[in-house]
């Protein structure tokens, strides 16, 4: 079986005014299904760029990338949106919940964007996940009525609701106090032991230590 993530020679160059800035200079990486991997490195090392490309939010300037057996390096627009929707679950540092939607509606959002799933079905799946993550009491609350840790667990539920192949998190504990951060990390570990593949970007060594394996980036290259 091929690795879930199979990337070769990934490069990304941005144009900043008149100068080209290379954020990635040829990265090879593989992630097997069921792994818990942390991408680490100082800021500006290209770790966020790498995760954006691996998460199909962005396309590489050069290189090949296969996600779950599908070559996605040439996909754009709605095709890339479809891959994001079905194969990737995102968790952001700032949670990025819709402030005007209830917890339940927030979690159901990826299914709504996928289309073709009935409202009742979307709700049922959102509820099941929220219950599993201990948020059954919060279904009808708005995000601003929740604590930071709770918000991030809602975001994790939202990332999982579409049964993606991989869960990606960008500094998921960066905006949390240590207690909530530990709570969220425990959730990730739990999900990992339940069989989920997790890719996490962090500059915090304590967070990275919880992963099975780390990929360290420096100046756009794996070191």
């Amino acid at each position, binding site marked *: 079986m091929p690795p879930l993530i199979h990337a070769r020679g990934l490069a990304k160059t941005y144009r900043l005014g008149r100068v080209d800035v290379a954020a990635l200079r040829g990265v090879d990486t593989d992630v097997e299904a069921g792994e818990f991997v942390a991408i680490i490195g100082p800021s500006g090392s290209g770790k966020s760029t790498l995760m954006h490309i691996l998460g199909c939010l962005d396309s590489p300037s050069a290189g090949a990338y296969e996600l779950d057996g599908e070559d996605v390096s040439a996909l754009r627009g709605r095709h890339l*949106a479809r891959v994001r929707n079905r194969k990737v679950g995102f968790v952001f540092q700032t949670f990025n919940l819709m402030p005007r939607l209830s917890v339940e509606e927030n979690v159901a959002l990826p299914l709504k964007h996928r289309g073709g799933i009935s409202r009742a079905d979307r709700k049922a799946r959102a509820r099941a996940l929220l219950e599993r993550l201990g948020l059954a009491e919060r279904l009808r609350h708005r995000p601003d009525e929740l604590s930071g840790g709770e918000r991030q667990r809602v975001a994790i539920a939202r990332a999982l609701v579409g049964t993606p192949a991989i869960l990606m998190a960008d500094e998921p504990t960066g905006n949390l106090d240590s207690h909530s951060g530990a709570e969220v990390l425990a959730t990730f570990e739990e999900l990992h032991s339940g069989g989920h593949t997790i890719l996490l970007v962090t500059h915090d060594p304590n967070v990275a230590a919880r992963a099975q394996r780390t990929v360290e980036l420096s100046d756009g290259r794996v070191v």
Partner: protein
Amino acid sequence: MTLFESIVTGLDEARRHWGRTLLSLLGLVLGTGSIVAVLALFGGQTALTETYINEVGGAGTLIVSNRDQSADPTPRELAADWLTYRDAAFLKERATSLALVSAGWAQSLTYRVDDLSFRGQVIGTVPDYAKINDIRPMAGRFLSDLDVERKNRVAVLGWKFADSLFGAVERAVGGVVHLDGVRYVVVGVMEREELYFAAWSGNALRYRNERGYIPITTAIAQYSANDGDAISFLTLKARSGVRPRTAEQQVRALLYARHGFENFDIRGAGTGDNDQEFFLLFNFIFLVVGVVSLFTGGIVIANILLASVVERVREFGTRMALGATPLGVFVHVLAEVLVVTVLGGVAGLGLGMALTGVVGHFMQMPAVVSPFVGSIAITTALGVGLLAGIYPALRASRLSPVEALRYG
């Protein structure tokens, strides 16, 4: 995301940001409102104009009159005959497109009853004149064929003249009136005629109440024997089913052949009226105001929407990360503006109806907000919304997810 969900989301956005919604609605409501009012007043005015044209003979009525001689007439023009009573007989015989032909002789004469006298218009004509112009006597009768044949010295008075000369309409019939010293027996008084385009615009049919009719043959014999049988105008009625334009062309050709020169004008009854031109201008100004406010409203909506898109760049970025397609985001933003603009259109329709009522009441002008006008208002609002929404929606849908997520 289905269209229905987009609309629900749009409504929800509009409700949550009601201040913003209200602001963007203002221009739209005012614009739609004034367009509705204009169309309604215009519709009322058009209906009135139609009534007026019907009053003065209907759409198939043509009036032929002598044209002024040119400043430097050619011998050919000088040799041409002016309109004559014989032209009427000629047209009656030859113009197949006409149903009725009446000759008219018009002059200002002195009316006198006992020691009361004034100058006023006298029309020398034939019985068909009443049919063509759709005028009826309220007392006595109109002129008869026998009157014309025998050159009877009988007169039919307009309502106002009968009232002024005899003090009461009832006393006029059977009375005696002298026109430039010639004695006539009054055989009839015509109905009072009134039509107001607006309360302040005066009776458009007043001239009909202030005149008298005598047989055309009597008029020619008594007052213009030296001019042969010259007359002032011909009033013609096209056959039903014949287009006025066709009748006009035939009459023009026939008279041209007979006169050898086009020294006459033909026009439809009720055209070239000052009042109507005034109203057209009035409507035009209102319409311009409406279009300008709609345009302004559209720009305001586009701006507010753009601001709201910028405000929510992160939200769109997140939605894209969760799998929203560019088209999905486009529809999402557009649905929001469409919901707002339909609301604006409905509110504008309401405002327009109120405006129509108020203006119609104070200016005493008839006005109708028809379903047609209503649908125009809603359609216009929707059109403005679409135009205003497309750019912001496009902007939102073209965001790169990474940049959108990084924003703010």
